């Protein structure tokens, strides 16, 4: 079964993106100690991304690289310091949360903490309907039960509390809550990391099914690269707040360009014996984000580092299916692509 045959990932420039980020940055001021003042931490640093309707954009990177900060900005929970976020060509900056949440909804990692333990499943799922006043009170219960059915739960769970459900069932409730407002975009922030393998596959299958049924667009944040490769149509790789490579999923996984993407893919352990573990030579040091390295922020760990990398930031280089931020692919260098 193909993902969405209507979308040709190669020719996206002609179609308008459903969601676009233009040079979005967010800086936090981090205290250094009582007398030492505060220093800026660039959690997200000039990120530009486009997501088209029906796509799944996978966002990968190590912990602390800014994936979740990016998700929070898209959800309207944080405002971007610089740059703008556009949904269907309209800047989000002036919108109130109600407008944003009617289009973008989240599914979080931990189904144990993302549901209110004092509210029944029915109350949790119908809360968005009550706040947005889109559905009359008497019709809500019916809609919620329909939603529960859509995510594979029996309607009688309406009156259950989260502690009566298993992890997989709770994640299904979280999905039902996200979809009850009929959003166009769903931000899945590590939706299966807290789940067992057999439950993970059920949830992924459900996300796939709902995406096809409702023509949803996903931003799929995960550190599980095998899952991202399976689901995503495009992938963005983040490192220290910047997207260092973005491109079509198939190309990125078969022919990764950025040395960081290459190392990341090499680290994946597959359930196939006899492959051993390749030495990725990245060194231990994930750099301190408060004091990032000069030039290309990846240079201290890069196996192909050149002199220019230490002083000059590479900036983004357009490639056929996206972009990459690496000096190796500049015109004057040997790996130049075009």
């Amino acid at each position: 079964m193909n993902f969405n045959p209507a979308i040709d990932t190669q020719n996206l420039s002609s179609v308008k993106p459903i969601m676009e980020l233009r040079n979005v940055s967010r800086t936090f001021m981090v205290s250094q100690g009582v007398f030492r003042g505060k220093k800026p931490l660039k959690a997200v640093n000039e990120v530009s991304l486009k997501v088209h309707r029906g796509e799944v954009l996978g966002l990968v990177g190590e912990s602390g690289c800014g994936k979740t900060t990016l998700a929070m900005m898209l959800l309207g929970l944080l405002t971007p310091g610089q740059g703008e976020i556009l949904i269907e060509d309209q800047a989000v900056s002036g919108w109130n949360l109600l407008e944003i949440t009617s289009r973008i909804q989240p599914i979080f990692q931990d189904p144990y903490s993302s549901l209110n333990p004092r509210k029944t499943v029915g109350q949790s799922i119908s809360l968005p309907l009550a706040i947005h006043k889109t559905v009359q009170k008497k019709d809500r219960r019916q809609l919620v039960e329909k939603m529960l059915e859509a995510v594979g739960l029996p309607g009688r769970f309406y009156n259950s509390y989260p502690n009566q459900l298993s992890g997989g069932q709770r994640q299904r409730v979280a999905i039902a809550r996200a979809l009850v407002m009929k959003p166009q975009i769903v931000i899945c922030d590590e939706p299966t990391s807290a789940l067992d393998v057999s439950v993970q596959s059920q949830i992924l299958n459900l996300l796939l099914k709902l995406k096809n049924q409702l023509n949803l667009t996903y931003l799929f944040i995960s550190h599980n690269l095998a899952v991202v490769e399976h689901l995503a149509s495009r992938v963005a790789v983040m490192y220290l707040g910047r997207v260092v490579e973005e491109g079509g999923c198939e190309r990125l996984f078969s022919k990764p360009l950025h040395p960081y993407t290459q190392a990341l893919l090499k680290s994946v352990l597959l359930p196939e014996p006899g492959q051993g573990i390749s030495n990725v030579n990245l060194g231990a040091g994930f750099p301190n984000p408060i004091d990032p390295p000069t030039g290309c922020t990846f240079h201290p760990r890069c196996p192909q580092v050149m002199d220019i990398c230490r002083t000059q930031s590479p900036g983004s280089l357009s490639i056929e299916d996206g972009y990459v931020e690496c000096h190796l692919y500049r015109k004057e260098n040997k790996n130049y692509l075009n």
Partner: protein
Amino acid sequence: MTVLLEVENLTVDIPLAAGDLHAVRGVDFTVKKGETLGIVGESGCGKSITSFAIMNLLPQSAVRNSRRLVFDGQALDELSEEQLSDIRGNKMSMIFQEPMTSLNPSYTIGEQLIETLLRHRKAARREAVERAVFLLEKVGITAAASRLKQYPHQLSGGLRQRVMIAMALMCGPEMIIADEPTTALDVTIQAQILNLLAGIQSEFQMGQILITHDLGVIASVAHRVAVMYAGQFVETGSVAEVFETPMHPYTQGLLACIPIPGKTKRGSFLGSIPGKVPTLIGDQTGCSFANRCAYVKEACLLKNVPMNSIGSVRSYRCILSSEVCYQNAREAACS
């Protein structure tokens, strides 16, 4: 190779208000020198309880029984708590999952590292410090001497896990039990830590039990694997055999749940195991996987299923004949 650890018919029961919880129900295995046994299973299957039972670190109410529990020629179930303390952290040590919580936040890592050596070897402080620095360098920590004065909160997750490994190695143990040693880490760090563990293990010819839910980790590191379900091993064998031709329906289902790049068609629906794990409270009859199994027959529900052995290391717990299991594995691999 000499056998380091022998476990026969290990059971752990935890009395609860609702009845006895049979957390581990008759587990048998051996670990040889220089060998890694992977125990894989989903949460609640009893894999961590098995390791705690070997180390005698179970909750007080838990009842442990075994026909045989021999480590390095000593019957562990006959030792006093004091004699056990002499073994724990000395000849047999453990690496826990959460480097954030298993280091004491109020002591420097130096103090925590040398503590084991002072306790077990009556070493002089200076020697202990030297050994700590040596091991920290061994596990790839730079500026090791200055790290000794740091507190756990000053280190990143990957560094803390390296400290945990160094700590486990302080007394030069013969066996290491690693319980999800890389679950909390990023993939790039995971690869480094596993490489490191494998290198150190073959260098010192240690036995290792690696407990994880990640089939990828098992496939890359372990020599033999035991698949655990509802407190029992349902399949054991060499890693190559089990991943190539999984015999037990649970192993087959588990492998079908994971997308494998190049094998699984992108964007296709993944395999899944319907139903849920049965409760282990109270008496158990029949195959514990029966309620989720696609091949279930009446006979599965009637009596407990014994392990069937094929060859010396391969065994599986299913009433189906090995030919039928092979056939099912092949069909599962094709679909």
